[in-house]
């Protein structure tokens, strides 16, 4: 979008005012009064409120339980991966691991 387009835009909250910035979060246009700088970005009030809102602690009271289950599943999956890797390594004969199998094949 070009500069001319911005000059034609109006503030979402104040229809009589010219827009001076576009919120990078909601992509809407706002006047100078409706935007604020946060984290080196110019944001509108509602997006800023959403961004600064505390994490969804109240929304998920069982989130600690959920995280514990997720963590357990991941560690078990990881353990199974290395366990079966070990089991597969045990299946191969020692001559294969030591490389002597190739010497035998060469001689035969």
């Amino acid at each position: 979008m070009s500069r001319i387009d911005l000059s034609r835009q109006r503030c979402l909250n104040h229809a009589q005012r010219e827009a001076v910035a576009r919120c990078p979060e909601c992509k809407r246009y706002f006047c100078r009064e409706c935007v604020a700088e946060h984290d080196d970005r110019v944001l509108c009030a509602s997006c800023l409120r959403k961004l600064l809102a505390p994490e969804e602690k109240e929304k998920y009271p069982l989130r600690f339980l959920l995280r514990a289950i997720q963590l357990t599943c991941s560690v078990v999956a990881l353990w199974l991966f290395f366990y079966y890797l070990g089991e597969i390594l045990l299946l191969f004969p020692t001559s294969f691991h030591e490389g002597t199998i190739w010497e035998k094949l060469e001689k035969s």
Partner: protein
Amino acid sequence: MMKPKGALDLIEEAIAELRTAPAGVWISYYAGSFLFVLCLLYFWADMSRSAFAHRHVAESAFGVSLLYIWMKCWQSVFASRMYDRLLPGRQARRSASRINVLRLILIQAILQPYSLFLLPLAFIVFLPFGWVYAHFHNISLIGNGGTTDVRAVWRKSWKLALLWPAQNHRLILILSLFSIVLFLNVAVVIFFIPQLIRTLFGIESAFTMSPLQALNTTFLTVVCGVTYLLVNPLLKTVYVLRCFYGESVHSGADLIAELNLAPPEVRSPADSSKRGEVRSEMER
């Protein structure tokens, strides 16, 4: 959408970043990876040689699993520090203060183990490999403890992995070829060290008596481990840069970083009050 950088340009930039990185950043990488690779080699040698390995395979596998999480956490710290070096001063300090150790461990421990299953699966299916590969590299950076929301980290990493697929696949191709060449170099060096010792000191070893001994699985694992330790920091940095440029599409951080490097007479019109306008221009 901005035009993405070329794959070779990105690799060159990553190498320049790595060359100028302070010792602390390197230590944060090798503190995790070196220990894991060393223990994985021990695990491999133990499982392939020991007559009593079947008795303690479960315990050993658990130890290696914990070290895998340890490595991934340190790789996340490394990726975050590399990312902070790219950000303009004030943002970098804010970003560094956001790292929360417990959150980082939690996110990395929850998400990274799945890479061991999904990457081989994606490789077999072939087509989605590039995206899955980028996704798990991105998790190292995005899951650096800024949030405990696993779903948000997963989504953001995936979103960044989807960016510029041609660049991503070119990167994978170039770095894979580089890895193969490095693998061969490391193998040749390790193979010829015993020959050199025999020539210089007259000491015989299994390798000098029979060159076929080099085909033992521990030798190949050592070569793979050394190659991984040498290539992975470059890969991580390349994906950190991809994330940085991907996020800059919205944040304009790359422009601010460039402005900060510019001389004062060029920088003055873009002081903090004007930055918003610069960014909103870029948004358009």
